């Protein structure tokens, strides 16, 4: 700028001052403007990321589209658990308290123009009016009191609250229409997925359940969660300038990937038969009914011998998956007990495998009373002129001890470990107990005695059945199989899960011999009540006094009674099973496994065999049945 001429109407010095000071002012303001320009560059670009992120959080609503969880099916493909659509009502508190939406809603309600509303109410009043109206209209539709709903929504103006869950299709649609009609700000009906059990009282312990996030927290839902769960999808919505929402233009939605399904080895019909038997109350006074036993716990597992597959697994007490009241543990795998006589197979399999004895080898049972130093053993069912076979079938404690001693502690312990005691079976169920089997170096002087007939050891029903399974099936130890195959959503098999063989426990000959001994138990021994007409039934009973830790002693009236056995037709072994009844309230002299568990097994196995259509062999009908004892 050039200097203006000295004006005529004023003092020239004053004009110079004006000029200089005006330039100072302009320069000063120009500098301020440049600084503001720099500030703009910062806000737009340099610091932009933080604020862009915040803006995205506020103006982009992320909706997680849940992935459908894989289904659980039984071996016939019958669905046991599957995800179903369900709806929830969500209040977005940010939108509920939004100024513009509140003004509109109040203006619509009062029939006044927005500017009128703005004039007569403060923003806070308008907001309160709008929130009150919205919640008062919504509450009765959700079956809630207005105060209760207000309590749910709370005072915060941020975040979302779920105010109603698990609505059915028609309810959800009606609510959607209602929200639309009354234009309730910030209220949405959201679609979700919920686990549904078509047969909610079936195999509850095996299936387990999922939590609100649809994550498995019990049963196979938990152990196979990573297979069953899918990958959730995402959708981003952004608010439009009209107050609505549209799918974000900047972030494309990601579709959810459904989880994989499992085909279990369970058979829902067999499981149903089993559950019904456990709940049945008949009027035959000679028979055993679980509800009348008033037992602390009952646990039954049925297995298919060919593949070591679990066909059915049920425990009492149990719960219902639909309402899921008081949860009950899966006694079959997570609870241990002292097995008693069933554990004797450890000693017998050892001596038979090492051919130290044969089934016909005579044994001196000392007339039912054995004393050697500290060791005193009594037999409840003394056997005259005993052989290994009759000692087994009559469950002689003395014989078991003498045979175990014949093996020696280390080899005896080796057979016990080999049978899977003291280790998890690897069944894919949560909370599987290890059981307790102390290593030899920790044994006391009486340990050999106690162990030989099933004390000082803790096992789960599944461990016990799995050990017997190895013997019944020729000596090969296998993992109990619960998952048959992994399928995709369309039912195409992605992965087969064949039976897993672990190791050989004993020779086939030894296994065959012990199996024969087990027939004898049912035929002439302690488990006569397990006999099923027309089938070969074998097994072993167990009756263990319960140890009371408080008294550090074994209780007189409290027993765990067990039967492990199998049923065989002409075609071979059809079914194996274990029945464990814990602390039944029954009259004295009826407390033996032979009186409680064996008949339960007979009833259950009989029904299952009939259901499967296995032909009874008339030759094996009771009257003329004979049994060859092989040597």
């Amino acid at each position: 700028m050039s200097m203006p001429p000295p004006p005529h109407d004023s003092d020239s010095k004053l004009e110079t001052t004006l000029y200089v000071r005006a330039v100072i002012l302009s320069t000063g303001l120009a500098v301020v403007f440049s600084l503001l320009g720099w500030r703009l560059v910062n806000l737009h670009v340099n610091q932009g990321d933080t604020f862009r992120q915040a803006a995205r959080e506020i103006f982009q609503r992320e909706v997680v589209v849940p992935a459908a969880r894989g289904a659980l099916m039984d071996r016939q493909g019958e669905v046991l658990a599957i995800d179903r659509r369900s709806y929830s009502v969500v209040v977005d508190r940010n939108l509920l308290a939004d100024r513009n939406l509140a003004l509109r809603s109040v203006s619509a309600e009062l029939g006044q123009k927005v500017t009128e509303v703005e004039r007569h109410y403060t923003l806070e009043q308008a907001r309160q009016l709008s929130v009150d109206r919205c919640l008062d209209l919504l509450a009765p539709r959700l079956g809630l009191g207005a105060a209760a709903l207000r309590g749910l929504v709370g005072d915060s103006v941020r975040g979302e609250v779920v105010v109603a869950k698990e609505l059915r299709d028609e309810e959800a649609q009606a609510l959607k229409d209602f929200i639309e009609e009354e234009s309730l700000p910030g209220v949405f009906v959201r679609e979700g997925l919920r686990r549904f059990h078509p047969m909610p009282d079936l195999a509850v312990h095996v299936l387990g359940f999922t939590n609100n996030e649809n994550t498995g927290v019990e049963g196979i839902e938990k152990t196979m969660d990573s297979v069953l769960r899918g990958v959730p999808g995402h959708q981003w919505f952004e608010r439009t300038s009209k107050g609505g929402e549209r799918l974000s233009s900047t972030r494309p939605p990601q579709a959810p990937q459904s989880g994989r399904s499992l085909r279990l080895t369970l058979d829902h019909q067999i499981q149903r038969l089993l559950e019904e038997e456990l709940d049945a109350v008949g009027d035959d006074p000679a028979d055993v009914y679980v509800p009348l036993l008033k037992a602390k716990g009952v646990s039954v597992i049925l297995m298919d011998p060919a593949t070591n597959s679990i066909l059915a697994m049920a425990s009492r007490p149990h719960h219902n998956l639909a309402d899921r009241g008081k949860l009950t543990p899966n006694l079959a795998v997570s609870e241990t007990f002292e097995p008693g006589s069933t554990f004797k197979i450890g000693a017998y399999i050892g001596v038979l495998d090492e051919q130290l004895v044969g089934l016909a080898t005579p044994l001196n049972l000392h007339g039912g009373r054995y004393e050697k130093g500290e060791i005193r053993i009594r037999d409840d069912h003394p056997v005259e002129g005993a052989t290994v076979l009759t000692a087994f079938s009559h469950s002689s404690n003395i014989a078991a001890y003498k045979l175990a001693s014949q093996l020696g502690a280390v080899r005896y312990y080796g057979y016990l470990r080999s049978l899977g005691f003291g280790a998890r079976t690897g069944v894919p169920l949560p909370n599987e107990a290890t059981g307790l089997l102390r290593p030899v170096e920790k044994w006391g002087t009486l340990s050999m005695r106690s162990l030989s007939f099933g004390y000082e050891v803790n096992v789960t029903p599944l461990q016990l059945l799995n050990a017997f399974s190895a013997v019944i099936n020729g000596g090969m130890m296998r993992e109990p199989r619960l998952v048959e195959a992994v399928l995709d959503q369309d039912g195409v098999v992605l992965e087969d899960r064949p039976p897993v063989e672990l190791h050989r426990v004993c020779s086939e000959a030894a296994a065959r011999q012990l199996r024969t001994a087990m027939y004898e138990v049912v035929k002439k021994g302690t488990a006569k009540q397990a006999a099923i007409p027309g089938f070969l039934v074998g097994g072993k009973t167990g009756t263990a006094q319960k140890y009371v830790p408080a008294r550090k002693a074994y209780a007189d009236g409290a027993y765990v009674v067990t039967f492990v056995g199998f049923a065989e037709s002409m075609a071979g072994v059809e079914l194996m099973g274990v029945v464990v009844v814990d602390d039944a309230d029954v009259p004295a002299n009826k407390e033996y496994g032979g009186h409680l568990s064996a008949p339960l097994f007979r009833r259950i196995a009989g029904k299952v065999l009939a259901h499967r259509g296995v032909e009874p062999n008339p030759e094996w009908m009771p009257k003329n049945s004979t049994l060859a004892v092989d040597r």
Partner: protein
Amino acid sequence: MSKIASHVLLGCVLLLIALGIVMLISTSMWSGGEAGDTFFSLRRQAAWLVLSVMACAVMTRVPDAFLLRMAPVIYVLGCLLLVLCFVPGVGVNINGSSRWIGLRSLGLSAAQVQPSEFAKLAVVIGLAGWYMRIGVRSREFVHGFLIPMMLVALPLGLVGAEVDLGAAALIGLAAFALMFAAGANLPALGTVVLLGFGAIYAAVKYIPNRAKRFMEFLDVLRDPMAHLGDTGMQQVRAMMAFANGATSGVGLGAGQQKSMGLTYAHTDFIFPMVGEELGLVATLAVVVCYVLILLFGMFIALHASTRFGRLLGVGCVMLLALQATLNIAVTTVCLPNKGLPLPFVSYGGSNLLFCLVCVGILLNLHRHGVYPELQATRGMPRRRLTPRA
């Protein structure tokens, strides 16, 4: 340069007005409010624009000698209008501030004017007139400082009492700049600066609303994200708007902040909307426009033919430039929030009218200006320039 000064000035003003209209359309799509009349605001603003352009045209033809003669009258009128705000039945109270006069009583329904807009001009004209009158005594303490201070204090106090602190700050700063340019005593002015800081401190400390706003402002600067829910959120939302706009903006009408949370989006906070929808390019262009208005306005003012004209011109330029500075500083969160529109761009009739009157005055000064480079030799008859725009 002398030829184009008024063209550049007018060009910048027209660009800003055009931007204002575009942004108004974009924002009123959301907040136009009245059901069935999306263009309510637009129509109203258009009416004000026509009125303002007419006023601007008239001002280009009003000789500054006339303004000089009328200066005392204009000044007194300005103060009287301010008093009217407090008269029941005439003053309109919105959001706790009585800065409007309703014209309902004059037969103009639904129209309100802010007398503080007129008062800004009245103070500048009054001061310029006063300094013109006292001539060389401008350097003296009593005539050049004390009396002008009192002239400023009266309207300033009235505007402050309306609780229109934005306008009060603008009047105070512009008057101060004018006194500084007119040659007022420097030590005295320096004292005023100190007192001014004292007054701000007192205001922050003793006016409850101010104190709260100020503390909030400090807090917003420290932790912007924590203030989304409360009253500090306007400025936070403004920052988000700038960030969201980035370099080239999200596109006209696509801004999110105006629909979700940025209140006064079409008035005091129009600048962040420009930032969000048109980006850094546009906001920098706006700043450049104001810088050009400042520089060319000052150029025109300094070349006015009379001392009164020069003082008046400096005052008008200061009013425009300072208002723009304050608004941008507030919306970019460099200053605490106070209500001041962005000249030419913000929605609001009174301010547009006043700004275009200032432009009219400057154009008039340019027509009668003295430009040595256009004169062959000193002493030649002055040539009058008529802007063609």
